[in-house]
């Protein structure tokens, strides 16, 4: 039996943790919000993907340099590409059957239908502007001022800049000429005219007094700019010989935007509380500009869009409240107006709106407008309006999530009883007794005949369908605890609760900033679950918010009194949690205000001089004393500090070896990992530090570690996993160039069965030096891909084996690596002996293969993920995962297979059927056997 169980467990260990291997198993538990970020207005357009295509798609390049094609029907992303590193802006232009985008030094043309790359060219300089001049030929303006013509990915001609001091602004194309617009440091503007065929440059200067806040715009037919800090507007029609026309700008204007299409130019004025536009017509031959009409002022922060449809030019005006108006290019008569059914709060501003207008018979119009909005805390949310009706929306503001916290949902059964008991506590004995009687009477009714009568129905339900009908919603958790809220904060100051168990549905949204103080917003430092259903938010600016995690109501808001350096949450016995905040100047504040510290606390704070300090915080005065400091080696700097997850239960204190001896884990919850890097010598040092006494318990120097590539680490239990890029030579010896994944596991002592000083001690003092010196075992593996972020699964009891989660930007996916694959005890250069095999140790292989079955996101592409956080479910086998930072992704994993829950393929009907069939069989066979036995006895007797 023992042998069987051993063999069985061995087999279990060898199986991959259950994954969706078949297509229909994927996407059941995982969800993905593919986000792209805030659209760049000038690089967002409706475009027919092919000349004969019936419908057009929305193409947009965003501030995170993602080029995406959005289906206007439902808002789904048809395709998207991350161009550049996600921080630099760029331009995207429509071409015939293609979209050409330039980010940084690269110009790429993508097939408009499927997003496949048609051609790409990399230049030496950064691209400033790009215009498509037909087919897939583009003219590119560089930041150094030079202009290049690219056709099909090949450079046709290059035209160097005349004056290196000129600041290139934009590029226009008209007829056969390309116009490059430059701002000159002193004189004004310069327009370079380049024939598209030859690339021979001729240029002319215009004197203009352009201030830093002035705007310069150019379209195919006109150059417009403002002078003297937006007090004057000047127009210059391109291709005409006439001088610039000057118009005085209205008083009190804070912003002027220009939009042009064909012969129509729209000037959009914004004051503090109003916005309006004036429409001008351009005369190419005369070079004149005449005012066609002006619109009456309306709400501020609106957006206009100038759209050509057939021979007509239309203007749509979208107001922040969702109202929109349609105008023709001739007069200020409203062709059509749309009221909105959405109730936007007053703080919304429309960043951009692009429209597609199809005229219908009887002066009717089909108008689709793609709108990007910004409200305090939420920047870049988009939605599409069709004839005034909001069709779909995309929460693009969640692309900039910087902090998150898990919120436990309430257990309906426990909560109900707890409430009742709480009532009884506050009553007299007799009152409590009566209350108890009443409760039992109530229960008799609840679980009375009706409930009993419903049992067969429920049993039938359970048999026939696998789905549980009455799934709990809202703040009540489901039976298995798969549902949890993740409260996340955006960089702009929005607080959002996502239901991770329900495909990431947005439960509520709250803004921590108002439009007035949005300029001073410095971001959320950390979010904590401070109590049942309450989250506390600490902001860098020095505010503490408490928010109801289920409803999104702001409970309290208090100033902390200074800029925040760091914060932590302390559990001080019982239910109460205290948030300790370190202000600049190392003063300590406890939150919520009035909280007390039961006993002295020891915390670690990053110093201003790039060091790390251990502080002892007095429990009464909150005065701090520096206990230790960690200054990195003179040439090094601290890259990052990693600690163990706040919830990290350890089921077993030792590791049982094949020969029944035990290696005791070095368990110390005060361990932190410091990664120090030396960019000049390309080295990285890993220190594991005991954070109460400041003693380094383990250190490892990695010479030849590329500090320009990500170095990430994660800690759990008694081990540390980190990844870095190693050079081909380490200390003069050849080494494996590539990404390395290193595991270091800490044990109490070198020899099994022997315990260090931590031994059986109930308590130990790290200060008195009772922490011993761990024995560290390490292995290094070559990992085939870059890892930008690491995480580790957590389960309720910590019995389930752990998995290391790694974000691989190269394949835009998250992989789950079983911890036992990274075991530092894997035997090197020999096959494992029997005892090691029994432990589940495999022979060391230098390369960790990427098993596609371990990719959590299957075929989905995850872009921009910076953090992976995990939390246990109610089932021991299951860990819930949430990844954020760009896209949002959630799933749940079972590293040791779902051993405590029946699988979907388990058929209750089959089970009952088998038992019934066996029963019938026994009923048939039993009399026969009995008769045979009796006959046999008689026969032997006779």
């Amino acid at each position, binding site marked *: 039996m023992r042998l069987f169980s051993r063999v069985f467990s061995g087999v279990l260990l060898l199986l991959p943790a259950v994954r969706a291997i078949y297509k229909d198993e994927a996407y059941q538990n995982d969800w993905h919000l593919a986000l792209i970020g805030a659209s760049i207005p000038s690089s967002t357009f409706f475009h027919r993907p092919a000349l004969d295509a019936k419908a057009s798609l929305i193409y947009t390049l965003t501030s995170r340099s993602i080029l995406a094609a959005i289906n206007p029907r439902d808002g789904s992303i048809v395709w998207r590409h991350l161009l550049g590193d996600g921080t630099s802006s760029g331009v995207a232009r429509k071409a015939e059957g293609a979209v050409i985008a330039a980010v940084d030094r690269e110009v790429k043309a993508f097939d408009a239908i499927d997003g496949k790359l048609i051609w790409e060219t990399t230049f030496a300089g950064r691209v400033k502007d790009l215009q498509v001049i037909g087919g897939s030929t583009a003219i590119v303006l560089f930041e150094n001022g030079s202009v290049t013509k690219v056709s099909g990915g090949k450079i046709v001609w290059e035209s160097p800049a005349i004056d290196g001091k000129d600041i290139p602004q934009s590029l226009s194309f008209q007829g056969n000429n390309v116009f490059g617009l430059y701002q000159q440091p002193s004189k004004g503007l310069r327009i370079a005219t380049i024939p598209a065929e030859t690339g021979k440059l001729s240029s002319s200067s215009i004197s203009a007094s352009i201030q830093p806040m002035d705007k310069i715009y150019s379209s195919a037919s006109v150059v417009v700019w403002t002078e003297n800090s937006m007090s004057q507007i000047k127009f210059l029609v391109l291709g005409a010989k006439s001088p610039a026309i000057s118009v005085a700008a209205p008083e009190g204007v804070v912003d002027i935007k220009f939009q042009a299409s064909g012969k129509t130019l729209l000037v959009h004025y914004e004051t503090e509380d109003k916005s309006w536009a004036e429409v001008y017509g351009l005369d190419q031959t005369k070079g004149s500009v005449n005012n066609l009409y002006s619109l009456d002022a309306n709400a501020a922060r609106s957006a206009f869009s100038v759209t050509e449809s057939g021979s007509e030019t239309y203007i749509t005006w979208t107001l922040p409240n969702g109202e929109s108006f349609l105008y023709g290019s001739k007069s200020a008569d409203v062709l059509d107006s749309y009221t909105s059914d959405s109730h936007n709060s007053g703080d919304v501003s429309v960043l951009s709106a692009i429209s597609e207008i199809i005229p219908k018979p009887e002066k009717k119009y089909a108008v689709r407008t793609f709108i990007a909005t910004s409200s305090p805390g939420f920047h870049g949310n988009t939605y599409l309006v069709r004839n005034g009706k909001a069709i779909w929306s995309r929460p693009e503001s969640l692309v900039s999530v910087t902090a998150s916290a898990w919120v436990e949902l309430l257990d309906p059964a426990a909560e109900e009883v707890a409430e009742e008991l709480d009532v009884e506590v506050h009553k007299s004995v007799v009152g409590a007794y009566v209350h108890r009687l009443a409760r039992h009477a109530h229960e008799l009714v609840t679980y009375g005949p009706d409930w009993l009568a419903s049992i067969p129905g429920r049993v039938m339900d359970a048999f026939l369908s696998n789905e549980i009908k009455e799934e709990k919603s809202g703040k009540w958790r489901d039976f298995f605890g798969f549902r949890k809220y993740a409260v996340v904060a955006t960089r702009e100051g929005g607080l959002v609760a996502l239901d991770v168990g329900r495909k990431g549905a947005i439960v509520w949204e709250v803004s921590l900033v108002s439009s007035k103080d949005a300029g001073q917003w410095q971001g959320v430092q950390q979010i904590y679950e401070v109590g049942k259903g309450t989250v506390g938010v600490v902001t860098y600016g020095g505010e503490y918010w408490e928010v109801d995690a289920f409803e999104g109501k702001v409970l309290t808001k208090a100033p902390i009194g200074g800029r925040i350096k760091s914060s932590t949450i302390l559990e001080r016995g019982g239910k109460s949690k205290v948030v300790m905040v370190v202000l600049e100047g190392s003063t300590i504040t406890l939150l919520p205000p009035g909280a007390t510290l039961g006993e002295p606390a020891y915390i670690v704070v990053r110093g201003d001089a790039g060091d790390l300090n*251990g502080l*002892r915080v007095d429990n009464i005065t909150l005065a701090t*004393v*520096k*206990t*230790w*400091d*960690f*200054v990195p*080696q*003179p*040439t090094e700097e601290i890259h990052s500090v990693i600690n163990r997850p706040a919830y990290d239960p350890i089921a077993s204190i030792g590791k049982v070896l094949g020969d029944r001896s035990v290696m005791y884990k070095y368990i110390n919850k005060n361990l932190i990992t410091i990664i120090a890097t030396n960019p000049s010598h390309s080295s990285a*040092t*890993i220190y594991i530090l005991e954070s*109460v*006494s*400041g*003693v*380094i318990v383990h*250190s*490892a*120097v*990695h*010479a030849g570690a590329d500090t320009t590539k990500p170095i990430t680490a994660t800690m759990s239990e008694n081990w540390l996993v980190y990844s870095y890029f*190693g050079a081909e030579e*380490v*200390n003069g010896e050849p*080494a*494996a160039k590539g990404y*390395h994944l*290193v595991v*270091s596991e800490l044990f109490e002592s070198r020899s099994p069965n022997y315990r*260090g*000083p931590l031994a059986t001690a109930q308590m130990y*003092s790290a*200060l*008195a*030096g*009772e*922490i*011993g*010196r761990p024995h560290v075992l*390490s*292995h*290094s*593996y*070559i990992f085939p891909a870059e890892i930008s972020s690491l995480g580790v699964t957590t389960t309720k009891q910590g019995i389930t084996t752990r998995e290391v989660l790694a974000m691989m930007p190269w394949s835009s996916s998250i992989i789950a690596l079983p911890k036992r694959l990274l075991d530092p005890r894997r035997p*090197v*250069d020999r096959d494992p002996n029997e005892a090691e095999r029994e432990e589940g140790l495999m022979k*060391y292989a*230098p*390369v960790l293969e990427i098993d596609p079955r371990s990719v959590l996101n299957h075929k989905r592409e995850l872009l921009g993920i910076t953090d992976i956080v995990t939390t246990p479910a109610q089932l021991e086998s299951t860990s819930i995962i949430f990844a954020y930072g760009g896209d949002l992704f959630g799933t749940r994993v079972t590293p040791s297979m779902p051993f405590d829950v029946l699988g979907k393929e388990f058929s209750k009907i089959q089970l009952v059927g088998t038992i019934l069939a066996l029963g019938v069989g026994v009923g048939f066979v039993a009399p026969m056997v009995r008769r045979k036995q009796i006959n046999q006895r008689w026969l032997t007797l006779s």
Partner: protein
Amino acid sequence: MRTLTHLLSLTFSLTLLLSHLSPSTAYQHSTTGKSEQDNGHSLTQKLYLWPISAESPTPLYELWYHERREDAACSSAGHKNCAMTGECGDDEIVRVGIIDEEGVFRGVATTGKALKNLDKTLINIRRNRSDPKKVWRVEFQRVYDLEEPDVRATKPTPGPQPFLNKPIVLNAEGKLPEPDVEKTFLQKYWWVLLAGAFLVLSGGGSAE
């Protein structure tokens, strides 16, 4: 009597044999404290202690270490530290460390209790990596399984590297070289056994 002599000689030859077989692997204990300055430790560093109740650090030890070697030494504690005199309590936090070039005290934390009995202390000197003559950090820790104070100047441990598979080298005939089969015990040491047997057999008959 005769059998006894034979037995003795056999034991002797076997002992000889065994001592020949297993080279001495006596555990070399790293040189530990108490040694005097004359053993080549050219560099010194003052170690201070600083109870949190005190205004300023006071000297604890003089450390002697070498530029490269691991062994180091410290002055035997001539004077009594604050824990011995009772100036700082058992539970009081005492910082032990060095004063760096800029005059800033840099150390780790311990308690008065750990300083009372200095027998089990481990002092770990970590050198400046770019200038091994200088001290980067000194750590003072009480370790229970130590017999006597241990002072060492540790070198940074290189991080693990992947164990790469060795390339397969073929010999001139393009074949895998035959691995050298290790000789068995008898093949190697038949002559000793023979000599032993000879001794035993030719033990000479005593005049009986």
